[in-house]
């Protein structure tokens, strides 16, 4: 990125060809190198007080998620209760960052969370496929924003992205970003989901990251959780490099959210190590890094309790969802 300057970014979104020239001019990702670096960072041993701190940080970073066709307001309320007090027996256990639900569940979540400080994130824009007309996607977004969602998780149109219609994807993100505005309140934060499992190459992940950041994303997010592979360590590493370079260039910090497939505390800690090494400690904060997960929280709680009590915890002592 050394050759780029912030002046280079001014006109890149002016036309389809300028945008393509810019995205395809980004340096290619060394796939073997990225995999090897992610694997190497995953071997770090995090123990004792560092582990305790990492577990608490990871809990604070969780976007506790339920995105199923069978969701009900009752289930969302239960999830909210868990987000606010993840370990009911231990008041020192921090709350999660947010709960992540479908737009029609936002009112139930907003009501249940009240003034607890736990945010409500809603997936919008015809999640998870993103296959709908733009006005439907905008209506979906506005619906969630008006219901009080603090954060919107949108999906990009992978079909358009993979066929090289970058400007279309860009303009869609810009339009959704505008729909996140609220008249008397702060706008909802926009997270842009790439579904990296469908993007085929790390080069595409890097291009999608830059595209979303140029379009005004507040967060870039790996996956919907509906497609495998979802959030892998190397993919998240490529995205962390992109946000690091973007901040160096523009001064604007963007958050990263891996989602889907992170189930154990051990994996979560590997992500934190990677974030610290690639982005730096600035990103080790729930405002800048999140985990989209549901079962991960239980494992974090079990590990946390193991650190506190000295014996291994059991599955009978945490909730099923």
């Amino acid at each position, binding site marked *: 990125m050394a050759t780029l300057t912030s002046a280079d970014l001014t006109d890149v979104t002016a036309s389809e060809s300028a945008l393509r020239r810019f995205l395809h001019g980004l340096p290619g990702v060394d796939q073997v190198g990225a995999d090897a670096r992610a694997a190497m960072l995953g071997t770090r041993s995090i123990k004792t007080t560092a582990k305790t701190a990492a577990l608490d940080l990871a809990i604070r970073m969780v976007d506790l998620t339920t995105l199923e066709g069978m969701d009900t307001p009752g289930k969302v309320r239960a999830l909210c209760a868990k987000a606010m007090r993840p370990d009911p027996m231990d008041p020192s256990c921090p709350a999660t960052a947010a709960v992540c639900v479908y737009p029609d569940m936002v009112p139930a979540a907003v009501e249940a969370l009240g003034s607890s400080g736990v945010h409500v994130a809603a997936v919008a824009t015809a999640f998870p496929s993103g296959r709908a007309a733009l006005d439907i996607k905008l209506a979906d977004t506005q619906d969630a924003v008006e219901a009080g969602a603090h954060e919107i998780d949108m999906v990009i149109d992978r079909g358009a992205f993979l066929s090289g219609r970058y400007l279309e994807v860009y303009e869609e993100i810009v339009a959704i970003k505008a729909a996140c505005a609220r008249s008397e309140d702060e706008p909802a934060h926009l997270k842009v989901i790439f579904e990296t499992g469908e993007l085929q190459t790390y080069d595409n992940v890097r291009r999608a990251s830059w595209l979303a950041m140029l379009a005004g994303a507040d967060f870039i997010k790996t996956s919907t959780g509906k497609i495998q592979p979802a959030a892998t360590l190397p993919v998240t590493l490529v995205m962390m490099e992109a946000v690091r370079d973007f901040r160096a260039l523009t001064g604007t910090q963007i958050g990263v959210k891996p989602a889907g497939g992170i189930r154990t505390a051990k994996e979560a800690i590997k992500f934190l190590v990677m974030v610290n090494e690639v982005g730096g400690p600035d990103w080790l904060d729930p405002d800048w890094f999140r985990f989209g997960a549901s079962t991960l929280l239980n494992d974090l709680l079990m590990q946390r309790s193991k650190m506190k009590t*000295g*014996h*291994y*915890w*059991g*599955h*009978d*002592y945490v909730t099923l969802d």
Partner: protein
Amino acid sequence: MARADVRKTYKLYINGQFPRSESGRTFEVLDAKGGFLANASHASRKDARDAVSAARSAFPSWSARTAYNRGQIIYRVAEVLEGRRAQFEAEIIAAEGVTAAKARQYVDAAIDRLVWYAGWADKIAQVTGGANDVAGPFFNHSTPEPSGVIAVMAPQGPLFGLVSVLAPVITTGNTCVVVASEAYPLTSITLAEVLATSDVPAGVVNILTGPQAEIGPWLASHLDVHGLDLTGVTDPDLARTLEEGAADSLKRVRRPDPTEDLLATPALDRMTAFLEIKTVWHPMGI
């Protein structure tokens, strides 16, 4: 040219696989005359944790199988063991220094014990459960159900002791983590090879080798373990420590009984120790 010895590496048995100890440690196993016999894996608390997670995830499907099917599988273990008896006899002779006749007797006893429990698999419910007479228009049934993951401290000695504590636990649908005899661990890993090739699903039996005093407390206090069989614990202080560890999570504990003769025909108590009776009231006459 003389052929090089092909020596066996004795490893642990966790989730249907034979991993080395996560800690990388081993300990020397000696023969009856105090000479070197083999190296065995020295299991760590993390191996115990992995074994419990394996047993925990194997439990739902193992306990949901029909009792008849579990009986068939236990019988299959006996069949495969019968086919490999020469190996077990040789290992028992090497480990204990007993005569060939004595070794054969031990293997016979182990096989017979498996067959005995295999037969009980689909009968224990009729003997310990039943239809209860109640003063009301209800069918009232009591049925025994398995407790969950059982941590078993195997008795000291090769093969037979292990079989006689292992078979009753899994026959009734529990899964288990066994800490093998510290002085005679080799036959237990060979038995694991038998279990691995006789339709016992991965994770139903997990076998750790190493010191009871080191591994035991982690299993005793583990909240995902539902029962503790202390048969092989000869040190009363250790037994007490383990019982205290188990108390926090209200585990079912079977205490060691020094007067117990394992070779005698068993009663049902080894099976009933880790069964829970569920009673169901069902309205009738409608």
